[in-house]
Each structure stands twice: as structure tokens, then as C-alpha cells.
């Protein structure tokens, strides 16, 4: 027992850092990696103490239930301390993340647009389907609400559908991603089997609050489901044949090429290259979302109807409470960089 009491105190972070100094310069280690390493150390040290206690207790003969209970209380405090500290580190990491300016700006524009649409929503001309739950590649759940309305941007011949998806973190209701899209007419095509087909183009952009957390692919998976509902609606309600082409632009590659031309190198370029690989794996040819390359930076895929027999694909006017809730959530992230 005395031997156990004389064990050295738990190593401090400064000492651990010093041991690592020769391998990695601390300023080069990302914040996320630092947090991950510290959380791992916390876990290992707490578990080691729990195991030591259990090992010593196993040598004590005839332990009474109340003695065992007291021992377990101490062990629970160790576990609580471990979990509370890890969660404090996670919170610290999240609070330090800056909301990107383009995301805040988009949230503000959308919030203003929704404010102007309040009367239209009351009249029942803003539509919404049921929310969709998706998981990011990092296993975090996001809730995706959709809103759509007809818009002509002041030019009656240029009418289009605005389809907006707002992704929130279901644990705190904060907006983590936005997809702002349009569905507009794009001429006609002749199909051997179907005859004349009206083409519709789905365009838009996606913005996420945090980068590299897999929010965009999860949001676009939900967007595809929302878009499919509109395709189903057209098939159910309108006479004729339609083809919905979802187009995306590889803006990241454009930026990457521009930076290369400007002679940029180092971490900034590497970051764009890593981002490009991620983009290609999702939206590139043979990527997860099924897009095909149609131009230097343009990719496209057809959104096919997926109708279940007997199911209605009528547009559903948005519930006003939900509409206001989305507005309030946008308010929070629009304020971030004001």
C-alpha cells in the first residue's frame, strides 16, 4: 500500500509536451489534434486510476456491501471528472471556432428573404416537406428543414422555384449548413422514347458553418431527397415529360488553379488540395453523389422521380411555427459576425 502511495503524481501537460518537443513543434500541431491528444491522456489517466483501485480492492478480504458502495462512489467521481473535463475541452474547441463570414452573410440574406415572405407563408404559398435527419461522415446528426416558394425576381418570364435547405444541430438548434437553390426551366430536349422533354436545371450553392466536418455531403444527401420530392410532384401534377438536372460547380478547383497560377504554395495550397480531394470523392466522377463531368468545372446528374404507389406528393404549406423557428435560428448565425 505504501508503495502505491509513493507513486509519482500524474504527469503534467508541460512535461508531456517537453517529451514530444523533438518530434513535433507545438505551434505546428493543430488545435484539434492538441485537444484530441489531451482528451486521450485524460481518459488513460482516469482509467488507470480506476484499474489500480479495483486491483487493490480485489486483495482486500471480506468487503462489506457498504464499503464496496463507498469505493464505487469514489470511482464514479473519477469517471465523472474524466467525462466533464473532456466535454469542457470539446466545448472550448467549438466556442473558439469562428463562423465564416460568407456563411453569416448567406444566413442574413436568407433571414431577410424569409422576413419578406412572412405574408406569403401565412397565405400558404411557402412550402415545406417533413424534416430529414442525416448523419455526417463524423457520425454527427443534422436535421434538415426545407422551404420553397415561387420567385420571379421581378421578371415574370424568368419564374423559378427557390428551394432552401437549412441544416441544424439537433442538440442545440444552431444552423450548421445552408443550401440555397433554384429550379428553373432550361429549354427542351428530344428523347427517343419520351419525345419532347422539358428540361429543368437545379443550381445553387452550399455553405457550411464548419469546414471538414462532413456537413456538406450530409446536407446534399438530404437536398437530393427534397429535390426528389419536387420531381415526384411534377410527375404527379403536370402533363408531359420532365428532366431535372442538378448542376454543381467545382469552385474549389477554380480557386486552386487560380492560386497555383499566382504561384501560391505551402499550407494554404495544401489545404485547398485536401479540400479538392474531398470534393472529388463526393461530387466528382465516380463520387458518392453520382455526378458526371459536363464542363471544365461543371458536373451534373439527373434527379429521377421515386414514387411510391398511393402516396401523395402534394406540396405542403409550411407550418408558421416552423417558419418562425427557422427564421430565429438564422438570426443567431447572422448575428455572429455583425
Amino acid at each position, binding site marked *: 500500500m505504501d508503495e502505491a502511495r509513493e507513486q509519482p503524481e500524474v504527469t503534467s*501537460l508541460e512535461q508531456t509536451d517537453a517529451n514530444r518537443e523533438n518530434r513535433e513543434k*507545438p*505551434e505546428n500541431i493543430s488545435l484539434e489534434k492538441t485537444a484530441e491528444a489531451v482528451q486521450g491522456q485524460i481518459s488513460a489517466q482516469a482509467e488507470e486510476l480506476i484499474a489500480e483501485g479495483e486491483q487493490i480492492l480485489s486483495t482486500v478480504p471480506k468487503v462489506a456491501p457498504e464499503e464496496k458502495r463507498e469505493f464505487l462512489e*469514489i470511482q464514479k467521481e473519477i469517471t465523472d471528472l474524466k467525462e466533464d473535463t473532456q466535454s469542457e475541452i470539446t466545448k472550448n474547441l467549438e466556442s473558439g471556432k469562428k463562423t465564416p463570414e460568407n456563411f453569416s452573410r448567406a444566413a442574413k440574406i436568407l433571414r431577410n428573404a424569409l422576413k419578406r415572405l412572412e405574408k406569403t407563408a401565412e397565405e400558404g404559398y411557402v412550402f415545406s416537406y417533413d424534416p430529414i435527419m442525416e448523419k455526417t461522415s463524423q457520425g454527427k446528426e443534422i436535421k434538415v428543414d426545407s422551404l420553397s416558394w415561387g420567385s420571379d425576381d421581378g421578371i415574370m418570364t424568368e419564374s423559378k422555384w427557390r428551394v432552401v435547405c437549412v441544416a441544424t444541430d439537433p442538440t442545440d438548434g444552431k444552423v450548421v449548413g445552408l443550401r440555397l437553390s433554384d429550379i428553373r426551366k432550361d429549354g427542351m430536349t428530344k428523347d427517343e422514347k419520351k419525345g419532347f422533354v422539358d428540361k429543368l436545371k437545379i443550381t445553387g450553392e452550399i455553405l457550411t458553418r464548419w469546414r471538414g466536418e462532413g456537413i456538406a455531403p450530409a446536407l446534399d444527401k438530404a437536398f437530393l431527397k427534397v429535390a426528389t420530392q419536387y420531381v415526384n410532384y411534377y410527375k404527379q401534377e403536370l402533363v408531359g415529360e420532365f428532366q431535372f438536372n442538378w448542376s454543381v460547380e467545382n469552385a474549389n478547383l477554380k480557386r486552386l488553379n487560380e492560386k497555383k497560377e499566382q504561384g501560391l504554395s505551402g499550407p494554404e495550397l495544401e489545404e485547398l488540395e485536401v479540400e479538392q480531394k474531398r470534393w472529388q470523392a463526393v461530387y466528382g466522377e465516380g463520387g458518392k453523389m453520382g455526378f458526371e463531368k459536363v464542363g471544365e468545372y461543371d458536373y451534373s446528374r439527373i434527379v429521377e422521380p421515386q414514387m411510391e404507389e398511393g402516396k401523395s406528393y402534394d406540396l405542403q404549406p409550411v407550418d408558421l411555427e416552423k417558419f418562425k423557428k427557422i427564421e430565429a435560428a438564422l438570426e443567431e448565425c447572422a448575428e455572429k459576425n455583425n
Partner: protein
Amino acid sequence: MNQSEQKQKIKNIYNSFLVKLNALKKRQFAFLKSLLEKKQQADLEDIRKNFH
């Protein structure tokens, strides 16, 4: 808050964890030590009773 400030904050959280963990470590060993001594004392008394 910039990255180095955040790293410093994580360090502070960790150091505060170490202080609390060391306190729990001492408490756990003190408890186990007194438990063991209690048992040893009980054993000694048993032996004494049997001896008489």
C-alpha cells in the same frame, strides 16, 4: 480567441483536471488503506480471541 490562446485554455483545463484527479487518487488510496488496516485489525482480534 486565437489558436494559441485556445491551446493555453486547454492546458489550463487539463492542469485543473490533474489537480482534481490527484485529490481523488489520494482519497481512493486513503480509503483502501484504512479498509485494509481495518481488515488486518479484525484478523488480529480473531486470532487473539482464538488464542484465548
